[in-house]
């Protein structure tokens, strides 16, 4: 990244800050977040969304960093949302994915946002979906999502991304049950990163065997890479970009319907919370089960 002074960026900063702040607003949740997302959804969906998932230490960040120059060549601009876990004890988080990137490729054409899971269980953050829609509306042609890295059942990225790459290392079979985690059924490409580690051939065989069991005609591809020195990266990018040639209509309708559903649910919960805080929620003495039905009926009546 060239050593530009702030003066050079003067105009860029205003637009950039606004984008960054709208993602923060979306992270905060609440009516403003919903409004921002609904506004974003009014734009036609054009961005391609590519997810990377896999266990911690697989090298997802390094892999994304290695693929970035290829992605930039292809798409012109790339946004990356990287999710890390929040501490359930303190609510804080150490977000260390950005530091794994090669900053030489970072300029105005790259937008990197670290997101803490904030207790959300889906492997991404609650705000990741809305952030994707905001970035899409702002014109970013490719959004990469890097999941939490636990990879067990947190697979929401599969719904959100057009395509998902599962990143594993040689020796994965010993420590990580990809089949049990459901990843073999949902990954569109499988990457054996840190391919210089012992056990590559076995890992490949094991993976390919699992993938053969899938009902699809052609099983997803398996690729070997060493992200830190670029080995296997151009081939992987080629395969991923081919996979990303998704018909525009399909992605638009899927993302829209998910957004509408989630937006509606969030709104509903919010309306109910408001109702609970209001005097109309005060309940007479009844049995608990009757109390719940009674409460809901009063809520519905109040909405009419």
């Amino acid at each position: 990244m060239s050593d530009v002074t702030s003066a050079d960026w003067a105009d860029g900063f205003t637009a950039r800050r606004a984008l960054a702040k709208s993602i923060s607003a979306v992270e905060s949740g609440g009516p403003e977040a919903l409004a921002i997302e609904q506004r974003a959804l009014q734009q036609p969906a054009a961005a391609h969304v590519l997810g990377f998932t896999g266990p911690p230490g697989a090298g997802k960040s390094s892999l994304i960093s290695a693929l970035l120059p290829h992605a930039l060549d292809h798409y012109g601009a790339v946004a990356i949302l990287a999710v890390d876990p929040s501490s359930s004890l303190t609510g804080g988080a150490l977000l260390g994915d950005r530091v794994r990137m090669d900053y030489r490729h970072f300029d105005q054409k790259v937008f990197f946002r670290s997101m803490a899971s904030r207790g959300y269980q889906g492997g991404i953050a609650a705000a990741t979906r809305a952030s994707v829609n905001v970035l899409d509306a702002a014109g970013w042609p490719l959004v990469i999502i890097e999941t939490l890295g636990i990879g067990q059942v947190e697979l929401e990225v599969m719904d959100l991304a057009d395509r998902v790459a599962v990143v594993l290392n040689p020796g994965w079979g010993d420590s990580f049950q990809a089949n049990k985690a459901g990843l073999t059924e949902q990954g569109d490409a499988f990457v054996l990163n840190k391919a210089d580690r012992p056990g590559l051939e076995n890992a490949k065989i094991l993976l390919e065997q699992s993938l053969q069991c899938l009902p699809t005609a052609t099983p997803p591809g398996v690729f070997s890479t060493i992200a830190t020195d670029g080995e296997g990266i151009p081939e992987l990018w080629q395969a991923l970009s081919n996979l990303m040639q998704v018909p525009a209509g399909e992605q638009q309708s899927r993302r829209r319907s998910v957004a509408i559903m989630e937006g509606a649910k969030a709104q509903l919960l919010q309306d109910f919370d408001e109702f609970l805080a209001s005097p109309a929620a005060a309940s007479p003495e009844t049995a608990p089960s009757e109390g719940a039905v009674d409460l809901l009926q009063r809520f519905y009546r109040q909405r009419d």
Partner: protein
Amino acid sequence: MKPKRILMAKTGLDGHWRGPTIVARALRDAGFEVIMIGMATTAEIVAAAIDEDVDLVGLNIGGHIDVALRAVDAVQSAAPDMPIFAGGTIPPHACKQLEAKGLEVFPPGSMLTDIVDSANRLTGLSTAP
């Protein structure tokens, strides 16, 4: 209450990581989301501060003060409302220069509780002096 986000960057190319890690961990334990970007140039620090929309910028400084001052000026120019605090091997004359720019400075020997208090104050979580 949404957690506050703090950027932690090192202005020099010195790789000692003891100090920054301890501070990052203390801030995390105090409920902050800490975005560590390691050794970063002025432009990289500004880009991170903006794109990550942080509530506070933390600089670990260990070399010539002018390198750090450049980063401070750039952040203050791009985001005048964004508070900055600094720690590290900062000799007295350099502390004064940073303080003159409105920074809170934590040379070696600073207590973690003071750093956390400062973070709380600078991000608007507390108003105690």
